[in-house]
């Protein structure tokens, strides 16, 4: 537990960073004579929630929690992209590794209080699927979450995980309380639609408690869309 590095960005650093960004733009403005800078481009756009990006590396010499570390946290649209633009895309991380994006304060593990009564919408990718597919789907998954695309059901969304595995990649969206069938079904429908999955391809939701007790093959799906 001790070695899980939590890279929190203190607020004053965000301000310093903001200030720098603004200075850069003003210089640009001077060069461009009478050009008026759109204030929209000077202000970072706040997100509803603060999110943490996690990286899991499958190092058998270490414990599961030791292998899990925070990459960084962000709470604006621009800071999301700043992170995305400076880390490796999912398809190119080592097999056996995961990226997770969770609301700050929720750890990407079943045991977390917010997750323990929850479950996940799981999408399995064929071993032969293209690397671009997993990258596109993972980006869409993250945009759905940070943009609060599920309206009030967004509060039930805890995060998402992409597993890079030689036997087939997976993306899962994790929610709280598996009993909230309507909200979870809405989330699943939107998730499937945004990822552009064919209507005939159905995705399943499984409760973590079922996944935990089931070893080997897949746990039963509580809901499907």
């Amino acid at each position, binding site marked *: 537990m001790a070695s899980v*590095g939590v*890279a929190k*960005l203190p607020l004053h*650093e965000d301000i310093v*960073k903001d200030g*720098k*960004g603004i200075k*850069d*733009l003003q210089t*640009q403005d001077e060069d461009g004579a009478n050009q008026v800078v*759109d204030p*929209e*481009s*000077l202000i*970072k*756009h*706040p*997100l*509803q929630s603060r999110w943490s990006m996690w*990286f899991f590396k499958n*190092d058998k010499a270490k414990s599961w929690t030791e292998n899990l*570390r*925070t*990459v*960084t946290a*962000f709470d604006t*649209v*621009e*800071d*999301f*992209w*700043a*992170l*995305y*633009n*400076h*880390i*490796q895309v999912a398809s190119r*991380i*080592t097999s056996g*590794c995961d990226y997770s994006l969770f609301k700050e304060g929720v750890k990407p593990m079943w045991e977390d209080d917010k997750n323990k009564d929850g479950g996940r919408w799981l999408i399995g990718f064929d071993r032969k699927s293209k690397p671009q597919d997993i990258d596109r789907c993972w980006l*869409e998954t993250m*945009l759905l979450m*940070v*943009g*609060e*695309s599920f*309206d*009030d059901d*967004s509060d039930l969304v805890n995060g998402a995980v992409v597993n890079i595995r030689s036997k087939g990649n997976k993306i899962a969206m994790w929610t709280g309380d598996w009993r909230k069938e309507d909200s979870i079904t809405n989330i699943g429908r939107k998730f499937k639609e*945004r990822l552009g999955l064919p209507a005939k391809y159905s995705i399943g939701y499984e409760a973590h408690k079922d996944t935990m007790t089931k070893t080997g093959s897949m746990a039963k799906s509580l809901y499907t869309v």
Partner: protein
Amino acid sequence: MSAPAASRQLSAGRDIPSKRVTVNDPSQLPHDYSTTPGGTLFSTTPGGTRIIYDRNFLLNMRNSPLSQTPPKNLPSIPGVTCPEVGAGAEKPNGARKTATKTDPAEDQFQMDI
């Protein structure tokens, strides 16, 4: 560089809830002026106004100048935030590798005053 203006939608508004707190004794008053009896003030609208961004707006913001600076304190994780350590080497040597890279630079600045 102008982003679409009406890209941010806001959820419906609702009344500001109020509650009456009776203070019977000065000891029940909060210790600082920024706190109201019975709790702090709402910093946002009641129930919170949800900040929603649509896909196109988010994708447009990728090219914003403010999205180009790497995050502060981005940890060095080989294969994630910096190049992978030599092919096949799966040991957590990333930090050491980075350290050796800076060694020649350190030599340059070693001088007697």
